[in-house]
């Protein structure tokens, strides 16, 4: 009877202790794998995926609450101010496409090519395959210059203007044979494809300029200037007349700086939000004469409407 009671107590203890033991076992396993993890990621960082650009972009995490592609505020904590001298930005060479005869497809804007990310997953979280997800908030300014053949120019210009309106954009400039439109960044690729259908595209030049550094720096400089403004106000309250004059002079300078920087930031935001497309109707002659081999057939340059339509009868 006593033995039975002992056995029952032993079994009850086991029942209680089993989950505890399992948890302990799992914890020890996790701890050992966690100890291994930093070594693994460390080695990955020395691989191809870890260039300077990747690190630089990752450091400038930004927040975009209104989902317009423009961050509402930067994460200045990630970027030490002291490390950045004003105007010292690493320049990224512009991406230029030079197409001689056949028009090529324009690269899609960054947001058009973004892979789908699950809602639960943080934006900058690494993917399951170990590669880092592309930064969602890279700030790119897209510009395109399209040269079209000189045929039905009035209709072409009107069609481009209509395209801008249909895609939520607007007319920026219109001349006799040239038109510049601004379209939302997300409609850049679609608008370019539609322009291809308007006429014979002779040449396309597309650029994507990364202004992430400039944008973040400007935001930080504004923040610092505002902090300085607050400090100056505090000092002004305690200052005598002579000091107050000096402080007010400094405050004027800081206020001007803030206004300038805010203007610059607004301009950058505008350029990022709206891509610029310039369509000009002109021959490429002057630009390609220097690069193209001149064929030794004099009759070739005589071809065209002026020679055909200039009527005369020699006697």
């Amino acid at each position, binding site marked *: 009877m006593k033995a039975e009671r002992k056995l029952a107590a032993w079994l009850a203890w086991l029942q209680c202790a089993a989950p505890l033991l399992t948890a302990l076992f799992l914890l020890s396993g996790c701890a050992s794998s966690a100890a291994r993890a930093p070594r693994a990621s460390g080695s990955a960082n020395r691989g191809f995926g870890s260039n300077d650009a990747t690190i630089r972009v990752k450091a400038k995490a930004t927040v975009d609450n209104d989902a317009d592609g423009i961050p509402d505020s930067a994460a200045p904590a990630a970027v030490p101010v002291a490390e950045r001298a004003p105007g010292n930005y690493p320049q990224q060479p512009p991406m230029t496409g030079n197409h001689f*005869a056949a028009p090529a497809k324009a690269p899609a804007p960054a947001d058009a090519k973004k892979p789908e990310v699950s809602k639960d997953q943080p934006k900058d979280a690494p993917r399951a395959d170990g590669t880092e997800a592309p930064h969602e908030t890279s700030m790119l300014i897209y510009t395109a210059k399209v040269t079209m053949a000189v045929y039905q*120019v009035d209709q072409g210009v009107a069609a481009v203007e209509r395209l801008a309106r249909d895609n939520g954009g607007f007319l920026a400039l219109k001349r006799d044979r040239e038109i510049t439109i601004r379209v939302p960044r997300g409609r850049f690729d679609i608008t370019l494809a539609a322009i291809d259908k308007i006429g014979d595209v002779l040449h396309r030049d597309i650029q994507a300029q990364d202004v992430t550094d400039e944008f973040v720096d400007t935001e930080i400089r504004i923040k610092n200037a505002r902090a300085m403004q607050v400090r100056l106000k505090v000092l002004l309250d305690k200052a005598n007349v002579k000091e107050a004059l000096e402080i007010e002079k400094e405050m004027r300078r800081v206020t001007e700086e803030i206004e300038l920087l805010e203007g610059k930031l607004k301009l950058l935001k505008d350029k990022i939000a709206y891509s610029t497309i310039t369509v000009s109707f002109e021959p490429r002659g002057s630009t390609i004469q220097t690069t193209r081999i001149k064929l030794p*057939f004099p009759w070739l340059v005589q071809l*065209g*409407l002026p020679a*055909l339509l200039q*009527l005369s009868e020699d006697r």
Partner: protein
Amino acid sequence: MKARARSASLLLAAALALSAAACGKPFDVKTAPGFVALENQHDFDWRATTPEGVVVGIRVVEDEERGDLGFWTQAITLQLRDVSGYALLESADIASADGTRGRLLKFGHDEDDKPYVYWVSLYLAQNRLFIVEAGGQKEIFERARPSVELTMKSVHVRCNGFLSPVLSSRTCNRW
């Protein structure tokens, strides 16, 4: 027998001499209704116009069979499209009235802010390059289009037979 042979050889020599001395054109073309052929054309071997100024012209470039049809098509397209800013509207394989394979390029271009149409047909025959051009203001050209097409389709660029340059001015107009 001897006299007959002599007269035959004389006839042949006369024919060859006539052929050699001929100063006509190495092609044949029909002037369509509504067009008038112009005389003494300097840069063109033949040219005709409507009263409204739709013009069809033919140039013959000697010794230009060095390149094939593809070469000349590309050379003309690059010149007109890239250098002169013409819009290439259409490109098609065609054949002349005598069945010679050719290429038709249809361009558009604005002159004095008005749209114009410019067609170029190319044929290679007789060691020559035949360039048949047609052009005019778009609206007027569209009205004259049937006559333009008729003229362009009537072009013969190949001589039929040895004596045809002399005997048959219909197929190879050397007179």
